[in-house]
């Protein structure tokens, strides 16, 4: 746009679990704020209390007479002090903010390394599209035998390490659904699976208790305003604003308060946000750029789900 196109309009940062991402920097700035504030307020208070009329000899003061420019008063050394010291402080603060700039805007991850989610903001909704499928597997706590599920276009395959249990699998895939038994530790079902639709499968034991669930989010749109992303991976949100009905597309801003970041979503310009969640949980999405009538209610949720490949315990990985 203005200068070079080498850097895309982006923002992001790594979130470390249990930490407010902007806290360190906030504390650094807070520290200097308090220092400067204290200097000014103590000085002000002292001057106001100490130098009141009747407490000083007024004959030493410059006379003010209507129509006469009074005797000037200045002091080279003093004034140099409050030019030089604030300049040093400003330089230091610049340096402090410099580092965060590269975290924030410097190195957007490539599409290959990141988990890419396309965000479409409309008035007043969030919609998400995955470019790679997201698989969430969850086994009940204390399950004594591992279960493995794999899905491809023509087959659903379930295997366990034990032959002693009798399990039931219930699956849905778009409008299709079905059910089958796993009796000898292995079951293969040959059926057409639409890989562009969401696929989910739950396995229950003989008592009907759920022991395992498998959800595969495919390249599909979720317009419920909710999105699932894997833990301990760099998530890259590429964001666009779209029009709805007769209205024009307008500017929104994706604000993820828990991760301390936001970036505007501008019609006709793809912007992005990237982050690296390190804790499972549900987080807020808020629109932070005024976008019309129901702007205040344009909110949603991001759910970070377990990532078995992660080494982090907070991400559901085995440590």
């Amino acid at each position, binding site marked *: 746009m203005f200068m070079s196109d080498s850097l895309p309009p982006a923002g992001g940062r790594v979130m470390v679990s249990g930490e407010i991402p902007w806290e360190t*920097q906030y504390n650094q700035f807070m520290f200097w704020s308090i220092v400067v504030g204290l200097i000014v307020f103590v000085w002000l208070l002292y001057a106001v209390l100490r130098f009141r009329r009747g407490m000083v000899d007024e004959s030493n003061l410059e006379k003010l007479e*209507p129509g006469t420019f009074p005797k000037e008063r200045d002091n080279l050394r003093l004034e140099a002090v409050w030019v030089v010291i604030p300049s040093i402080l400003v330089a230091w*603060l610049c340096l402090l903010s410099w580092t965060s700039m590269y975290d924030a805007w410097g190195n957007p991850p490539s599409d290959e390394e990141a988990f890419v989610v396309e965000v479409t903001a409309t008035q007043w909704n969030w919609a998400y599209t995955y470019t790679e499928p997201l698989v969430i597997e969850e086994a009940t706590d204390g399950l004594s035998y591992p279960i493995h599920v794999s899905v491809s276009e023509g087959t659903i395959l379930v295997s366990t390490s034990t032959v002693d249990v009798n399990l039931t699998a219930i699956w849905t895939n778009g409008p299709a659904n079905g059910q089958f038994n796993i009796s000898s530790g292995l079951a293969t079902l040959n059926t057409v699976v639409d890989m562009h639709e969401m696929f989910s499968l739950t396995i229950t034991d003989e008592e009907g208790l759920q022991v395992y669930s498998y959800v595969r989010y495919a390249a599909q749109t979720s317009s419920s305003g909710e999105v699932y992303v894997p833990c301990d991976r760099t998530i890259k949100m590429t964001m666009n604003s779209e029009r709805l009905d007769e*209205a024009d597309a307008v500017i929104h801003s994706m604000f993820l308060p828990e991760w301390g970041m936001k970036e505007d979503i501008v019609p006709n310009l793809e912007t992005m946000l990237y982050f690296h969640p390190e804790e499972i949980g549900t987080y807020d999405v808020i629109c932070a750029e005024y976008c019309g009538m129901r702007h205040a209610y344009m909110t949603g949720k991001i759910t970070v789900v377990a990532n078995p490949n992660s080494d982090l315990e907070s991400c559901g990985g085995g440590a």
Partner: protein
Amino acid sequence: MRRKPILLLAIIAIALIVTPQFQASPGGIGSTSDDSGCFCHTEDSGTEVSISGLPDTFNASAIYNLTITISNSDIAGATENANMGGFRLLIEGGTLDFDQTLVQVVEGGLTHTELGNDYRSWEVSWTAPADDTKVAEFILWGNAVNGDANGATGNSGDGYNGATFQVAGLNAGAIEETVDAQRAMVVLMSTVLLVLTLMGLAAMYVFYSQNPEGFNMGNFWEWLKGWLTTTDHKGVGLLYLNFGLLFFLVGGLLALLFRIQLATPMNDFLTEKEYNSFFTLHGTTMVFLAAMPLISGFANYIVPLQIGAQDLAFPRVNALAFWMLPGAAILLFAGIFSGQTGDITWVMYPPYSTSSGGGDMSANPGTTLFVAGIVMLGASSTLSGVNFITTILTMRAHGVTWMKMPLFSWSIFVSMFMLFLSLPALIIGVLMMFLDRTIGSVFFATNVGDPILYQHLFWFFGHPEVYVVVLPAFGVISEVLATSARRSIFGYKSMVYAMAGLGVVAFIVWGHHMLTSGMDPQLRFIMMGATMLVAIPTGIKVFNWLATLWGGALVFKTHTLWALGFILTFTLGGISGMFFPVAGLDMYFHDTYFVVAHFHYVFVGGVVFGLYAAFYYWYPKWTGRKMNEKLGMLHFLISFISYNAAFWPMHNLGIMGMPRRTHSYTIESGYGELNSSITIWVFIFGLSQLIMVWNLIYSRKHGEVAGPDPWGGWSLEWSTTSPPPTPSFAEIPIQKDANTEAHRDGTFMRGVKKLWMIGEKKEAKE
């Protein structure tokens, strides 16, 4: 008396009230703002329109077959399949399905096609809304035509009529009686007339109270005419001040209204559209109709007196600049009476602000007038800019050299210069927006134009603008503190350089408002660094004020208190401003309540407190009487405490993540407690302003009589009588100088010379 212009204005006003606003729509349907259609024909109560097949209550998503029928026994249609009638149907709730050969959608409503013109009844099928707690509404207009549009009588002889039908959902409550909305223009004009009448009565009372015995209408008219036609800088200045104060109260009232809305979670005191337009009007009013006119008012009254000029360079241009403001105010507020004023925030970002035709998704129709109002404000400010720059450049009295000019005049000079340089960017941006809205140009259109271009244009103006309003406050504080400490200001020359420095730096930092806007990140880097620089000249000013107090003999008058309060709150506002240029922090704080807290600390705690100090300080100059000190102290105490109690917690809300410009918030968010307490304190703050208003009125007659120089100030305005004569000096005064050296270098020059001398000494040694 100039009867002609007045007559003309009256005719225009009446014409605006009575003429229908005609808009052409595609498909040849005429429509007024309320979409009644068919203005090419005449209204006729003999025409009956009906919809059969409507249920008493609808079931969610059920399908109903409807027949639209119009009838008029007096108007026979043409024979042989030629034109017989037409209709227009607007629905709220549900969707329609129909035979496309006979019926079509035009501009969001249903109407007949060319072929469909040959009937007087049409069939459509209606799918009821999925939500059966709603009430669906059908607005139908039908026109019985005689089919001789090309014949002798043209379109006359046709008759149209309309009706509204409502169908409640199965689970809807009772249908509320809706009151027919008045035509917007009627409401607007009536309100303007009402306001004018009230203002006329108020003026009459003011005149009456000055001399109850000598009152008669003739005198009053002469007196009023004097005010309406004055070009004297003092008269125009007082007009500006009254105008600014009035709109300060209006803007405050709007703030109180939307603070009620925010007091509790999920409140519905205001609708979303109301909330959005109220905070838009609040921001725009406070900045453009309150702060700027108040500053212009002081500048008008005081600057010519301070520099020893008899008037401004262009007195008539000055009056013109003022009289554009009421016009602009009417445009800005035009939509509010019909609930359709601009809801585009004070920064007016397109594409939302250029959007139209999308119903609730688009900006209110009043936005067009709102934007026109901004253009008018820009014109007014440009004129003032030219005027003040010229005046200060050319009309300083003997002795008032650049480096001997009072700091308030300096602040006005720098501020007007900045305004003059930055305004073109705003006007261009806003005009392009106006064209996008009206003639369909595509400067900011989302498929070809660039909405971010507008943001650059706006903030290239917007950031200097915040200095335009705060520099005069700096000027006031410099005057007030020096006078109150009974000595000269510390570091006069560095004060001047600091202001000029701010004036330059302020032009290269606009991007800090756009750090998350999708702007090129390299540009973000530059804006970040430049922004931090602003702290240096600002720091110089604060420390110089503190050094002025040091060793002085401070007298506590009301204006002194405001000035001391200013140092406190402005410093806080300045400090919180340092958090925004930091990438890592701005990504979080941008557009949260932290921003709202910050800019109210500099706007209210800076600009408004500075202006309050100015009111108490210069009031004796224009009335000859001091304001009541007791009331003044009370005003200061209540305002200062309630102000901090109200606005400080907004920082906390920002840290908690509450976004700004939100109509409401959930209970779980936990914002409720702070917001309720803010609202209570804001009401106390708002009410305490009435103390000052009362003080201004009361002291005009009952204040302590003040001589020419009640506070012991030095600048030229204190050497003339209070109030000053017209023209303001009988004879151009000469400013004397207490400094004995013919020319004394300032700190800056001495610093440069010192450095220079180090070089020379070195050379000499070698």
